[in-house]
């Protein structure tokens, strides 16, 4: 994922504090499973809560329509944790119904934001190799 997308994600999530912010991830996927996030969708957290989020199906559909138009693939979702670490909560795990999705969790609990990506399947989660790319470098 390009660092500009990463910066935008952090700024958006901070602007929506104290609520959890959320949305969808779109991009491209290679045959070996490597994913490139090309666009982040910023969708309404219809729960408007600091400890929970839900996406509206209509918003999801509009975002997916836009992805199809742009030739991008839905790759997962993201949400922020305003006051907890960047790891899936019990509720995140329970509600992770799509094992093909990448689940980004952005923690804003400390001074520096922390973003991780997870694969969740059969209620077991595993950290994915997420790289933020800036020019020839990544971190």
């Amino acid at each position: 994922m390009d660092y500009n997308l990463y910066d935008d994600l952090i700024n958006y999530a901070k602007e929506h504090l104290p609520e959890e912010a959320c949305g969808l991830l779109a991009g491209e996927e290679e045959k070996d499973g490597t994913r490139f996030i090309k666009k982040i969708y910023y969708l309404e957290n219809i729960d408007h809560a600091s400890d929970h989020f839900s996406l509206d199906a209509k918003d999801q559909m509009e975002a997916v329509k836009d992805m199809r138009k742009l030739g991008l693939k839905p790759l997962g979702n993201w949400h922020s944790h305003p006051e907890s670490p960047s790891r899936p909560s019990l509720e995140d795990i329970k509600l992770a119904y799509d094992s093909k999705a990448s689940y980004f969790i952005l923690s804003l609990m400390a001074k520096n934001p922390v973003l991780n990506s997870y694969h969740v399947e059969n209620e077991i989660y595993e950290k994915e190799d997420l790289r933020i790319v800036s020019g020839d470098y990544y971190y």
Partner: protein
Amino acid sequence: MTITVAGEKKEYKDDLKLTELIEIEEVETPQYVTVSINDEFISFDDRETTVLKEGDSVEFLYFMGGGC
């Protein structure tokens, strides 16, 4: 007949029911998936009686939510 499923054009038998498509496509936890056909949501109760037709475009939208 040709149907677009999750952005991909595929061939299926004629008069395919939506429930059959969900099975063929191995949709995980279908009870937590909202289905749209040509941008219209299909209610859970209508899945069994909904028959797909040539040129339809189907999307499977997983419920997305969580806590912290």
